[in-house]
C-alpha cells in the first residue's frame, strides 16, 4: 500500500497554522501515548524524503527503502527523547537519518552523534532557540543557500547531500583540494552573515 505523500506546502501549513498540529506536536503525542495516527502522519511526511536522502548518499532503492523505514522506526522508539529545545521535528529526524546513514552505509562509528550526544552537551552552553526563531533561522539559511554562487552551492551540496569528503569532492570536480575548501568556507561565511544579521 502506497501512502499519500504530503507536499512541502502542506507540511509548512501544518506547522504554521495556529490550532492545527505541528510535526513537533505529533512527536510529542507519540512520546506521551504511543499515538499511532500521529506516527503515520510523520511517516508520510518524512519517509519519502529520507529515502531520497539515502539514495543520494549512494544507497540503491531497496537499501534506501530499508533505511527510511529504519529511520522512522527510530523516530518512533526515540520520540520520548525529543523536546522542542532540540530543534524542529525536521532537524531531529534529519539527524537520526544522518546518523543511521553513517552507521549503515559506511559501517563506521558515528563520532559526532546527533542529536542525543551533541545537543545534550551543547544545551549547557547556550539557551535553546525557540521554535519561531528556529523557523526564521532556517528560512535565512535557505535564502542564503539560494543566493550562493553555483560553484559554492555545488561543493556544499556534494558534502551534505552526496556525503563526499573534501578530497572526494576535489576528485569529482577535478579541482585542487584547497579550492574545494575555500569554496566551502566562503559559502559558510555568507550563510553565517545572513543568519547573524537576524539578531
Amino acid at each position, binding site marked *: 500500500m502506497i501512502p499519500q505523500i504530503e507536499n512541502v506546502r502542506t507540511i509548512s501549513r501544518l506547522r504554521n497554522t495556529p490550532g492545527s498540529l505541528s510535526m513537533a506536536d505529533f512527536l510529542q503525542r507519540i*512520546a506521551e501515548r504511543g499515538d499511532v495516527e500521529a506516527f503515520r502522519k510523520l511517516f508520510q511526511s518524512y519517509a519519502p524524503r529520507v529515502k531520497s536522502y539515502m539514495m543520494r548518499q549512494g544507497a540503491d532503492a531497496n537499501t534506501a527503502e530499508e533505511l527510511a523505514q529504519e529511520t522512522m522506526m527510530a523516530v518512533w522508539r526515540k520520540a520520548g527523547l525529543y523536546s522542542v529545545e532540540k530543534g524542529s521535528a525536521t532537524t531531529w529526524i534529519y539527524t537520526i537519518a544522518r546518523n543511521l546513514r553513517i552507521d549503515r552505509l559506511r559501517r563506521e562509528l558515528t563520532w559526532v552523534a546527533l542529536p542525543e550526544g551533541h545537543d545534550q552537551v551543547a544545551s549547557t552552553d547556550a539557551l535553546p532557540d525557540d521554535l519561531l526563531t528556529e523557523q526564521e533561522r532556517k528560512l535565512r539559511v535557505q535564502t542564503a543557500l539560494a543566493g550562493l554562487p553555483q560553484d559554492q552551492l555545488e561543493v556544499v551540496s556534494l558534502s551534505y547531500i552526496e556525503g563526499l569528503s573534501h578530497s572526494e569532492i576535489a576528485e569529482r570536480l577535478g579541482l585542487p583540494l584547497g579550492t574545494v575548501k575555500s569554496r566551502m568556507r566562503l559559502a559558510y561565511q555568507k550563510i553565517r552573515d545572513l543568519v547573524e544579521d537576524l539578531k
Partner: protein
Amino acid sequence: MTTKITHHPHAESLMSCSAGSMPEAFAAVMASHITMCPQCRKDLALMEKIGVAMFEQLEQTSVLQDAPVMHMRAAEADHGAIAVDAAVVQGGVPAPLQPVVGPDLTAIKWKRVGPGVAQHIIALNDDRANLRLVKVAPGQALPEHSHNGSELTLVLQGSYRDETGEYRTGDLADMMGDATHSPVADAVDGCICLIATEGKLKFKSLLARFVQPFAGI
C-alpha cells in the same frame, strides 16, 4: 576545561563534520575537540541547519511500504533521557574516544617509532584516513614535514609549538596538504596528540625520508 582553546578547526572542516562526510579518522578528532570546545559546538549548530535546509529541499521518493504500525506498541518506545557521561575528558581521553582507547591515557600501549616519539594506532573501518595517538618526549622536535592530504591534530596533554603558534590541550591544528611544519613538544610536559592523516607524510630531509618507512608515520 581550564585552559582556553585558541586553535579551532576551519569552518569547512566543521561543515564536513556536520554533514557526516568526513573520513572516519577526521570525524574522531573533530568529535574529541567538539566535546572540549563550546565555540565549535555553537558553530556546528548553525551548520546542522544547512543540512536540514538541504534535506528539506530534496525531492521525495515514494516509499513502497506503509508505516509499519502493525509491529509497533507503545511499550517499545524509549522514554526519558539517555544517560550522558558527565566526564567529558576523563583520564585525558575525550569521551568520544574512550570506547576505542579506554578512559586513561597512562594505560595506552605505546610503540616507539623514533627518537622520543611513540604512537598507538587506532584501527577504523574507513581507510581513507588513518588515526593515531602520538606521544612526543619533552623538548623533542619532529622532522620538518608536509602532508599529501589534510591533517587534523588535537592536543590531549601537554603542548607543542610550530611555525603557526603554540598548541595546548584542546587546541586543534587543521592543516592542508601543502603546509610544511616542524613541531617541537613542550620542554617540560612533552605532548600527546590525536592525529588524523590523509595520505602519507612527506619529510623534507633525506634522512627523515629514509626513516619514514620504519617509523610508519
